[in-house]
């Protein structure tokens, strides 16, 4: 009569310990899980240094032809932009200005215009004084995906040997251009 009642408290005493251990385990797991994505974020962008740049060729906005393969010997900035992107509007004048002053040293700037209308992008180029920019339209955005574009604006740097050596997500600044592009032009 007494035996079962005696035995029960014995293992009931072990029960809270089990629950506590499990709760701790789950808590630790959640804590680690919450930290994990933050830790992996900076490495989220695959390093691009040195890989051959993806192909980029086609008819430009003004009816000419552009082929990245034929631009060997030049440093090419591929700027992914769209008329529906506000920051792109802000950085275009800087890019045009940079190309104008550095083209004698071998710099070429190409705009990859994603998911946009011809009229809209012409208007944007007019407004920003960028009518001379080489623009390759990418109406469905698939070329941009081939380049691994994560958002607009985004800028890729292709060196004189056609290798992808740098990329920048977001707006480019004069300081970034001077730090990253000027050495390539000197070399």
């Amino acid at each position: 009569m007494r035996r079962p009642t005696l035995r029960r408290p014995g293992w009931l005493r072990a029960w809270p310990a089990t629950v506590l251990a499990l709760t701790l385990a789950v808590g630790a797991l959640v804590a680690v899980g919450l930290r994990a994505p933050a830790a992996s974020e900076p490495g989220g962008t695959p390093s691009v240094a040195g890989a051959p740049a993806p192909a980029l060729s086609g008819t430009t906005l003004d009816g000419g032809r552009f082929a990245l393969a034929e631009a060997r010997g030049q440093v090419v900035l591929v700027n992914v932009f769209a008329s529906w992107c506000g920051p792109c509007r802000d950085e275009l004048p800087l890019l045009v200005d940079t190309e104008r002053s550095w083209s004698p040293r071998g710099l070429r700037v190409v705009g990859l215009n994603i998911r946009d209308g011809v009229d809209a992008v012409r208007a944007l180029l007019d407004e920003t004084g960028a009518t001379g920019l080489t623009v390759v339209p990418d109406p469905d955005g698939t070329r941009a995906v081939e380049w691994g574009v994560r958002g607009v604006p985004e800028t890729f740097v292709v060196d004189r040997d056609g290798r992808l050596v740098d990329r920048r997500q977001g707006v480019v600044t004069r300081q970034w251009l001077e730090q990253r592009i000027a050495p390539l032009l000197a070399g």
Partner: protein
Amino acid sequence: MRWRRVLVALMLVALAAAAGAGLARSAGDRGRPDPVRAVAAELRCPACQGESVADSRSPIAVAMRQVVADQLAQGRDRDEIRRWFVQRYGADVLTDPPDRGVRLLLWGVPALALLAGAYAAVRTLRPRAGRARPAAPRTPGARATRRAWRVASVGVVGLVASVAVVTYRLDPPARPAPADPVAVALQLAHDLETQDRYDAAAQMYQEALRERPDDAVRLRLAFALLRSGDSDGAQRTAREVLGREPNSPDGLLVLGLAQRTSQPVEAERSLRRFLAVAPAHPAAAEIRRLLSPDPAPNGR
């Protein structure tokens, strides 16, 4: 004793049914006949937070869906396409990167918890074989423990069942909302109109019409064409609508306004018909004003 067994069997059946329903729900996406969606759902949208390429409306995600569709059309399989994206975007582009380290624990801990619970249940409900005497489990304490276990089991079954029922109710309205290209195109066109970019808006309306022919959209297109200065296009579009619905007020209004530059007489006829059909239209007062200073050719 017999009814208890029946009760346990019923509970197990209920649990198995709930688990089956859950499995069917999570496997539902894959069983769908849309292979593009199936692949895109396993890719993370790089421009958004916590959204898959299949669900996101961001332009990059739309472009990625297009790439998936193109590659499927070229005969590539799911793994090849995933590799293609990993090469360009890194392993983070996959919504379920390969399990290792901590992620394995995520599966291990619930399994361990279940096993521990089952073990505890067996210990409580079944006295050890050596002491199994018919009278032993009949003590009041043991009976209370058994009752507690049963109540807890019924509670768990109830919880699982209610979650299954509630999620069925909650899910459907969330589904159709994301990818409706027509709605997106119309919203974009509307935004363009507010920026006075009527020719771009007209293009978006035409895109929407290709997906879904609809006279309401056709009338918006006609208005946009009219405002962008393409009165011939506006007339043509308005006549298409009027061909199906001769008394469409908006159709008559656009037609009349578009005719004003080239055919003033027909324009007045169309606009007067518009006033006759819809005297309370928001534009009616403006049209009356437009027509009144003009000495009407058919006289008064």
